[in-house]
């Protein structure tokens, strides 16, 4: 394997994902920390800006899922205007959110994970990327690229730009869907559908056995996502639900604007990313997971037939929920399918091209919460404004944050598998990375790597001394 492991007394390495592993006096793993090194301070510099700027400004939190921030922000603003947005605006926002679900999940799968699955975990790191995938399997690479492009193109045709479209606004959206663009989307649907169905079949034929999917550890936790009132999978509106590992509903039908009653955040001195947790269980026991596995585990069923059939196969009749980290990849594909099915339904609805798309109003409330499902999980924007709509305070809980406890747990579990009595065995860095990667953390807000993560793992013994530093560039 081409990976390099140096064990040397390096104290500080720039631009790397940083992990510290703590050992007990027997030399076994006591704890592990995954450090997130980026902070831009949106919660501070947005204070004093106007409400109207917030969707455009917060989009810049993340260029991988800007639509998520634009929509959560617009929803928080709708609440401050105290308006109900027109039905067509809801349909259009849903359409854009699904376009984003498709492009972001396709990016995660085809550009980031497929090189591992298809070129092999042990293949040459110099070509184990999307460019290498193009060379090795141009057919599949082209399909994956076109599937992501379909999602991006939906966003572009609605909002005039693929990344950071200034389209969803307080009260609705500012541009209707034209008949031409609707026709283009309808025409491209069958190709997208066949790509995802083929990819799911390929994935299941390779990883059909549940034991094959245990490679990145498994552990139980709670799972959170929005669901419809009847318990169906949801991504734009609905109510918050938490289920436990047995599939029992812990929190049912919670009004998302009251999130702070069940979710609080802790911070730690060694990372810029906070730790949301479920309040009744406290910190750090109140761990829950969000994103594809979180949503799929939280819901009872899918409202669309093909995704529902996949869900039944995935659950295999069990009520228990999968805690396998690797199943993030599986559920991500199921969600692409569900998204495409709903895109088809939305395009078939004639209200979609109506031009009644925006409610106009002034400032009618001093506080507003916007919650919806981003590709990586539940996203929360919470604003407080003055009478002129100037932001006085804001709280943002980003999707990747919800999984912070779970990612740290994955790192700890994998370190335990690979470090025994002070001895570190080979292969640990790859597995740790695979564990973090499965969560598809939106690390533009953290370790800054879409490709293979450069990692530094520092092992600290019970006396507090650094025993080893493992580096992979």
């Amino acid at each position: 394997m081409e990976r390099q492991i140096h064990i040397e007394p390096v104290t500080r390495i720039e631009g790397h994902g940083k992990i510290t592993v703590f050992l007990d006096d027997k030399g076994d793993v006591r704890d592990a920390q995954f450090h997130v090194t980026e902070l831009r301070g949106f919660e501070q510099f947005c204070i004093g800006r106007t409400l109207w700027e917030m969707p455009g400004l917060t989009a810049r939190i993340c260029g991988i899922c800007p639509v998520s921030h634009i929509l959560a922000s617009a929803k928080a603003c709708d609440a401050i205007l105290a308006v109900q947005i027109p039905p067509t605006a809801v349909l259009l926002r849903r359409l854009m959110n699904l376009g984003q679900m498709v492009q972001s999940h396709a990016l995660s799968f085809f550009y980031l994970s497929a090189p591992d699955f298809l070129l092999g975990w042990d293949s040459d790191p110099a070509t184990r990327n999307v460019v290498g995938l193009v060379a090795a399997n141009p057919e599949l690479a082209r399909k994956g690229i076109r599937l992501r492009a379909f999602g991006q193109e939906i966003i572009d045709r609605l909002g005039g730009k693929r990344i950071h479209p200034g389209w969803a606004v307080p009260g609705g959206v500012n541009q209707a869907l034209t008949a031409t663009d609707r026709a283009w989307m309808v025409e491209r649907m069958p190709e997208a559908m066949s790509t995802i169905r083929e990819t799911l079949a390929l994935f299941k034929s390779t990883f059909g056995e549940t034991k094959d999917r245990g490679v990145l550890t498994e552990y139980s936790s709670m799972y959170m996502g929005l669901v419809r009132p009847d318990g169906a999978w949801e991504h734009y509106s609905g109510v918050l639900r938490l289920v436990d590992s047995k599939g029992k509903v812990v929190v049912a039908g919670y009004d998302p604007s009251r999130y702070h009653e069940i979710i609080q955040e802790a911070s730690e001195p060694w990372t810029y990313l906070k730790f949301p947790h479920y309040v009744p269980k406290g910190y750090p026991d109140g761990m829950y997971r969000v994103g594809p596995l979180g949503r799929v585990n939280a819901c009872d069923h899918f409202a669309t037939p093909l995704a529902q059939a996949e869900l039944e196969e995935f659950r295999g009749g069990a009520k228990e929920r999968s805690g396998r980290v690797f199943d993030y990849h599986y559920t991500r594909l199921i969600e692409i399918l569900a998204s495409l099915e709903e895109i088809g339904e939305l395009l078939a609805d004639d209200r979609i091209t109506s031009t009644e798309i925006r409610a106009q109003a002034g400032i009618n409330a001093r506080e507003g919460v916007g919650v919806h499902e981003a590709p990586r999980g539940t996203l929360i924007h919470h604003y407080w404004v003055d009478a002129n709509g100037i932001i006085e305070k804001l709280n943002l809980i980003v999707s990747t944050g919800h999984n912070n406890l779970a990612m740290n747990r994955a790192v700890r579990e994998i370190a335990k598998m690979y470090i025994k009595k002070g001895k570190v065995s080979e292969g640990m860095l790859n597995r740790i990375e695979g564990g973090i990667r499965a969560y598809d953390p939106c690390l533009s807000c953290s370790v800054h790597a879409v490709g293979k993560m450069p990692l530094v793992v520092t092992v600290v013994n019970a006396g507090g001394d650094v025993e080893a530093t493992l580096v992979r560039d």
Partner: protein
Amino acid sequence: MAKVRVATMWFSGCAGCHMSLLDIDETLIDLAGKIDLRNSPITDLKVFPEDGVDVTLIEGAVANEEHLHLVRTAREKSKILVALGDCAVTGNVPAMRNGLDPDQMIEDIYGKSVTSNGALPYEVVPHLLGRVRPLAEVVRIDYFLHGCPPPAGLIAKAVLALVEGKTPELTGSDLKFG
């Protein structure tokens, strides 16, 4: 002819400029045949080759100690250095924190936020600079690509020109911010 070696990096930005690079879609397949993509967030290579690269594209502004060090390394190792997108060109959104004291900012975000226990992150994580700076304030930049993000077509046009050893011709809307 040896393939042109290209590196990309991201500092304080949102990854959007890199996403825009991927938005060239199938042109990526042609481009893949013309360039040797080295260290980049989208490949497995993380450090510059010993003898450097021909072109490095950098997204994002210089916001912490790590970026400061990395941008200097990038200058040393690259024949041509390109500021990719408004954050790299002007500081853009990340620079909106300029004027705020970083320590006060950390205190407010972690110490007093709506739902938090108050531990302040100062260990292991890189220290924030007092002021977020555009790349050109720190090192010499050869080309600037505007836009938030620069449109995929603009990136493709500029990169293809550079790969062929030409000066990219940027006119009209190519020079638009935002």
